Structures are given as C-alpha cells and as structure tokens.
C-alpha cells in the first residue's frame, strides 16, 4: 500500500495556479525524486503534504487516511518530517536543543528519550561538533544539514527533503547520498526535491518531473532523464 498518495491535488493563488491536478504515490521504503525548473511548484507540493498550505481540490492521503484537514503539527506527529529549502532553524537555540525539540514534539518522546534521539541524530549527520552552537550562527550549509537532522529527529515515516545538496562539494554530496541510503535502509520513505541531479540519480527509485504545476513525467530515473522533453525543460540542453 502507498504510504503517501496525492489524488488530483490543486492549489491556486488568485489567478496563478501553482499545483494543477497532481497525483502521485510513494510506497513504504521508496525514494522518490522530484525534479523541475525553478518555479515549477515543487516546494508548494511539499507545503501541501506537510500542511503548511491547504489544498484547494483533491486529497492528500497518508497511511490510507485523508489528512486534508490536519494542521502541520498533527501531520508531523503522524510521521511526516520535512526540511525547508530556506533553512528555518530555531536560531537562539543550540543545535542540540533544535533536535531535542523535534524529538520531544514531533516524535512525542519524554525529554530523556528525546536527548537520546538527538544524540543519535548528531552522530548520524556529523553535526556533533556543533551541538552547543546557536543554530542561528551556523553557515548556510550547516543550517541545511540541521534541517535534515531536525526532520530525522521527529522520527518520521516519510521524510520530505527540499534541496539539501545545493552548494555541496562533490565529496560532500557523496557523503550525503550515503547518509540518505542509510536512512532509507532503516525503512524511512523519502521524497527528495533536488537540483543536484547526479546525487538524486544515485539514490532515487523513481523520478517525478513537474513543470507549471503539472506532472510532466514519472518513472524509472534514467529513462526519465533520457526523456527529450525533460532535458529540454530542465536544462534547455537538447538531448
């Protein structure tokens, strides 16, 4: 059964339709990559899943139940963890406290257990040496890493990652992919919006390409990347 399913989901702001009848489903344990040019409506899609934005039409189903009416905090507690494209840390709190917060409220753990989760995530994501640093004073790349770490600390079943590889060196990107593979192996389902295509290709089970708020193409990653329309839309390079 699909862990998450969007059914003909639409969203408009005034005359501007940003999501136009998108359907997608993700199976438990799968990694779905989302591609599309800037302004295609990828982040809006995440907002619709996480509840930061509500749908105008269609249905968002998680674990078989419609979650249209649920607030973001409720969706998080159900197991939808997300990162933001523009990092949104709790700036005055330390990195460790950011993670403890996520574990306390996202995973609804008692504080002592939340410490354990936070400690574990710090080890996993390589943020341990920044543990006591105020999150607001970290570099952009580390703040992006914190986005991933904090989403993990909510102990999600579904992880929504919004452009976390941008700006990484090749080596760092590879490390990130290895980390995501480990996360995937623990049974967490992942949807990943990413412009760093080679990183995405090395882990995604399927790709979903969006343009103008509509689905352009869905399928096995390499065949999607060979799709002439996708290449044209994405990079403007003729295949």
């Amino acid at each position, binding site marked *: 059964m699909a862990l998450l399913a969007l059914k003909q989901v639409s969203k408009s702001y005034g005359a*501007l339709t940003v999501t136009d009848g998108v359907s997608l489903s993700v199976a438990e344990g799968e990694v779905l990559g989302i591609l599309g040019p*800037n*302004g295609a409506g990828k982040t809006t899609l995440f907002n619709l899943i996480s509840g930061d934005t509500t749908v105008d039409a269609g249905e968002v189903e998680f674990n078989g139940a419609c979650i249209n009416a649920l607030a973001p905090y409720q969706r998080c507690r159900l197991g939808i963890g997300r990162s933001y494209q523009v990092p949104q840390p709790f700036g005055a709190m330390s990195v460790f406290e950011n993670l403890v917060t996520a574990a306390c409220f996202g995973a609804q753990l008692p504080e002592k257990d939340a410490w354990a989760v936070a400690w574990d995530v710090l080890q996993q994501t390589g943020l341990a040496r920044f543990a006591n640093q105020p999150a607001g004073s970290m570099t952009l790349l580390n*703040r992006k890493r914190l986005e991933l770490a904090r989403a993990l600390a909510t102990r999600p079943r579904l992880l929504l990652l919004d452009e976390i590889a*941008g*700006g990484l060196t090749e080596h760092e990107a590879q490390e990130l992919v290895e980390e995501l593979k480990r996360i995937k192996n623990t049974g967490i389902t992942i949807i990943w919006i990413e412009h*760093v*295509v080679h990183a995405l290709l090395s882990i995604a089970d399927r790709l979903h390409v969006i343009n103008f708020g509509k689905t352009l193409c869905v399928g096995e990653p390499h065949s999607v990347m060979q799709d002439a329309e996708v290449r044209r839309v994405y*990079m403007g*390079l003729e295949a």
Partner: protein
Amino acid sequence: MLLQAQSVTAFYGDAQALFGVDMHIAPGEVVALIGANGAGKSTFLKTLTGLLPAKQGEITLDGARIDRTDAADIVKLGVAMVPEGRRLFPSLSVEENLHMGTLSGRSGAWNLARVYQLFPILKEKRHQPATSLSGGQQQMVAIGRGLMSNPRLLLCDEISLGLAPIVIREIYAALPALLADGMSLLIVEQDVQLAMQVSSRVVCLQEGRVSLEGPSGALTREQISSAYFGI
C-alpha cells in the same frame, strides 16, 4: 570596461555566499551568468545593485567605485535590475509600474511609447493591476520597468523562470532591440542553451566562485556540465 568586479565576497548574516568573484562587462556586451541553484548568481546581482553590500572586494562602474553606494543611487548611475520573481508592485497598475523606472532620473531612448512598441500587449492592459497579468506579460512589465530607467547595464535575473517555452521565446526576441542602443546586459539564466544563444560570453558560478568563463560559442557541453553540476 563598463563594470568591473574584483574579488567580491558577500555574506548573508554569518553565512558566506560569494568567495572572491571576478567579473567584467564591456559596453554593449551580453554576458550570461549560469550555475546551479544556490551557486550565488542572485547574490552576485544583489551586490552589484547595492541591495547586499559586498563585504570585501571592489566593484567599479566606469572606473568609479560603487560597492559602498546606496542601492537607490546605483540605479541613478545606470545599473538597473529585472529582479528574480519579477517583483512588480501589486498595488500599481501596469503603467504605474513602468513609471517607477523613470525615478532613476536618467534620460535616454526609452520611454513609455517605446516600451509599448516593444511589448504592444502592455499598452492594451496598461490600466490593469500589474499582478493580474499572465506570467509572461508580468515579465514584460518587469523588463519594461528596467528599461524605463534608461540603464547602461541591465541585470536580468531568471527572466524565463516559470514561463512556457513560447513565452520565453517571445521575451528573448525583444533583447536585440535593447542592444541597439549600446546597452550592456548581464543575464542570469538556468536554461543554459538559451543563455549561450543570446550571450557573447558565459560565466559559470559554483559555490560562490567562478568555475568557468569563456566565449559562448567555444565552450563544450562537457565543460559546462562539469562547471554547472560538478559532474
């Protein structure tokens, strides 16, 4: 050189976004600035316009330093920007938006009539609220607004963003008309093919540094791919 940037660094708060960027633009030249998301393209344009002051380095316009100049004065010196996401004023009509360009106080070939000649559809819709237009038409307003300030250098940030291919062609078809007056263009474009077509020189940014630079015709796809994605 019309514009020269040397070893420019810039920060958002504590986070460094540019690590010593060098770039120059000659009068009448069209330069394309490409690179992946987060590479620092928009940040670089912001430092040129004075919205985000450069931390270190030097930016000169016709030999005069502008890296400490207020954004409101830089446009008066002749550097105008068509910002990413168009940033039209929602409470202003199409024509009022265009009028905002004249606040630069610069005289030149561009006026309301000529902008309407370039984009006739705008004349038809001139009294409508600017944000009620379609995406492509809004982009025309944004470009027209930049032109109304009669700049010597026009910075275009992602003007094809979110537009249908046919609309993009329509907008890019207008570029030669701008060059006729000797205006220089710096175009940020994620559509590499398009960027190469319209520009004479390409500069690629990666992680806040220039990773590739050269004449548009002479660069191979492999070079670009590697400078763009790091693969």
